[in-house]
């Protein structure tokens, strides 16, 4: 019952007035970011790094994680009322949620979205509390070759799954790794690629890159064409939000399937909340007795994906905390934030900083309760935020980003990095290069390089070390296979098409 004991300690930390307050702020901000189209969780977390910089690590990570899973709640509101997904993870919710709203059933749709988010979110945190320590114990014995294989696998999975083009995904990842090489080499202590600038000795600032690539680039894409918003006007009373008995009967199966599916998809690096909600919707449609009704406003089409994306957010914390492998852009930014606070996620985290891990996990239980309260009775409040035009939001996002980046180090050079990263990020979006692998590679880069060079030093330059140690062999093979998976899929498709003709 060691875990119960850890959890109790965690709750003692999370229930302190300060942490409770910041958890509340995090989930509130997360809901807001989720509600507003055109600003996503990555942007929210990236902007919060500098703002929470002065806090202690536990409070900072509690706040930022709150934004992450809070956004999963908020995203559904916009999907249901506007037919515009607040986040990419709530795209599936637009299909049946908006149709329900058109039929005057916006209330139950919003209610079911919040309730299923809560149930699935809590389920995934329970899973996280039990699985994470076990996995961490297992990974403690990892040496440099295992670490290299692990980070390599994290990178290949994310680059393989991000975007449409495999070549472009890998190029993004390699570009991020090259960026990570800038600065003083950790092993020899000599500088490289600094172009005579003392500011680059510490490397390319992570915060500037993350805020530029996500927040600024997002603004630039959105400013091209003004967003059009069409409201479904509905009166929302507290009573109208509760799904009726039939709604429950329809949703229960979708909800538990979505929860389980979402958690395991979330654990897998590279997949995450969006894929989870996608899979859940597809599963429900397949299992349904009336698949033809999907897309016309069936409540299980809301319950399943909304449960799955919340469960995935909890699942994504597993590889981040236990292995130090973030599986998505948002968790990569979270990891960068932890590193800035001097905390290295990984198997040792549970021994070295139990207060951070268990404080965070406990805060997630509390955060989900807070979110349920925020999203059920107060849903009207969030709807009114949707009436703030993007025109006014845009200057706010830019100035908060710019001042925030400055504030971390009182350094204008970091603002220039953000500026450059913003332009690069915009061009990348236009050319269909995914941005997440860059940030992921920048965060993992130093670890990749250190473990690679240490491994090759151990083996006297023999590359077979990655294939002769069992764990590292499995991981490396899996990583290489995952790179070829899209190719196999492509060939399979052409093959099938050829056969059909």
């Amino acid at each position, binding site marked *: 019952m060691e875990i119960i004991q850890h959890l109790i300690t965690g709750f003692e930390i999370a229930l302190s007035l300060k942490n409770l307050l910041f958890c509340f702020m995090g989930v509130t901000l997360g809901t807001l970011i989720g509600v507003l189209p055109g600003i996503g969780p990555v942007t929210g977390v990236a902007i919060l790094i500098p703002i929470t910089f002065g806090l202690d690590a536990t409070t900072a990570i509690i706040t930022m994680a709150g934004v992450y899973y809070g956004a999963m709640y908020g995203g559904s509101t916009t999907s249901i009322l506007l037919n515009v997904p607040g986040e990419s993870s709530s795209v599936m919710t637009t299909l049946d949620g908006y149709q329900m709203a058109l039929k005057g059933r916006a209330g139950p749709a919003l209610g079911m979205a919040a309730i299923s988010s809560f149930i699935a979110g809590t389920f995934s945190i329970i899973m996280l509390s039990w699985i994470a320590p076990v996995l961490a114990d297992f990974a403690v014995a990892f040496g440099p070759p295992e670490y290299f294989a692990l980070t390599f696998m994290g990178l290949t999975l994310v680059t393989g799954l991000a975007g449409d083009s495999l*070549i472009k995904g890998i*190029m993004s990842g*390699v570009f991020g790794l090259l960026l990570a090489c800038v600065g003083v080499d950790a092993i020899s202590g000599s500088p*490289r690629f600094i172009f005579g600038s003392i500011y680059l000795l510490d490397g390319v600032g992570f915060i500037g890159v993350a805020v530029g690539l996500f927040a600024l680039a997002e603004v630039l894409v959105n400013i091209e064409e003004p967003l059009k918003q069409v409201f479904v006007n509905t009166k929302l009373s507290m009573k109208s939000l509760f799904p009726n008995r039939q709604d429950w009967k329809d949703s229960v199966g979708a909800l538990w399937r979505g929860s389980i599916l979402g958690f395991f998809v979330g654990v897998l690096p590279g997949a995450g909340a969006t894929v989870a909600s996608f899979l859940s919707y597809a599963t429900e449609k397949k299992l349904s007795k009336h698949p033809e009704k999907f897309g016309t406003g069936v409540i299980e089409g809301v319950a399943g994906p909304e449960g799955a994306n919340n469960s995935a957010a909890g699942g994504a914390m597993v590889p981040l905390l236990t292995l130090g492998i973030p599986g998505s852009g948002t968790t990569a930014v979270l990891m960068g934030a932890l590193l800035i606070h001097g905390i290295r996620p990984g198997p040792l985290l549970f021994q070295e900083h139990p207060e951070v891990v268990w404080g965070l996990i406990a805060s997630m239980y509390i955060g989900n309760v807070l979110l349920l309260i925020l999203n059920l009775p107060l849903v009207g409040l969030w709807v009114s935020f949707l009436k703030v035009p993007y025109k006014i939001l845009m200057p706010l996002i830019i*100035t908060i980003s710019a001042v925030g980046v400055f504030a971390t180090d009182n350094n204008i050079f970091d603002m220039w990095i953000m*500026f450059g990263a913003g332009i690069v990020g915009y061009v990348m979006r*236009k*050319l*269909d290069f995914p941005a997440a692998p860059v940030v992921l590679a920048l965060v993992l880069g130093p670890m990749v390089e250190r473990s690679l060079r240490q491994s090759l030093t151990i083996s006297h330059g023999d590359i077979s070390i990655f294939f002769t140690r069992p764990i590292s062999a499995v991981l490396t093979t899996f990583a290489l296979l995952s790179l070829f998976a899209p190719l196999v899929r492509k060939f399979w498709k052409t093959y099938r098409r050829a056969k059909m003709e």
Partner: protein
Amino acid sequence: MRKADQITGIVMLVFSLIVAYTSWQMPQRVEFGPGMGFLPFWLAVLMAVLSVLLLFDATMRKSASAGKPFPTSQALRNVGMVIAGLGVYIAVLDTVGFAVSTVLYVVYLLAIVQNERWLKSAVISLLSTGGLYVVFQVLLEVKLPQNIFGF
């Protein structure tokens, strides 16, 4: 998209060759293992291969139309104005000070870039700059840049 990918492929090929050349000059091997030029060199080689693949893939592609359309001139104007304004904002921040430059930049974004009414822009700008000041300077105790007059 085809042309864009071809150009990207060429630009990235040149970039990776420069990186490869630079890192080749760094120590590739030290006494007990790979040196600091080792990883960047091989990354650059990989990047060069990928660039050639992208170039090849784009040239071989059947349809040229797939992908996002090129941004309209209106879109480019908006994006360019936001970026240019931000560049000026960062450049003058240290001498003009946080308060003045932020008020001006936000008014510029609202009134000039997005054709919002001047009065409304000015009010929003003053409020948001004030808000940022309270959050960062007062609550988070960050020393925001000041001009010679102290604001």
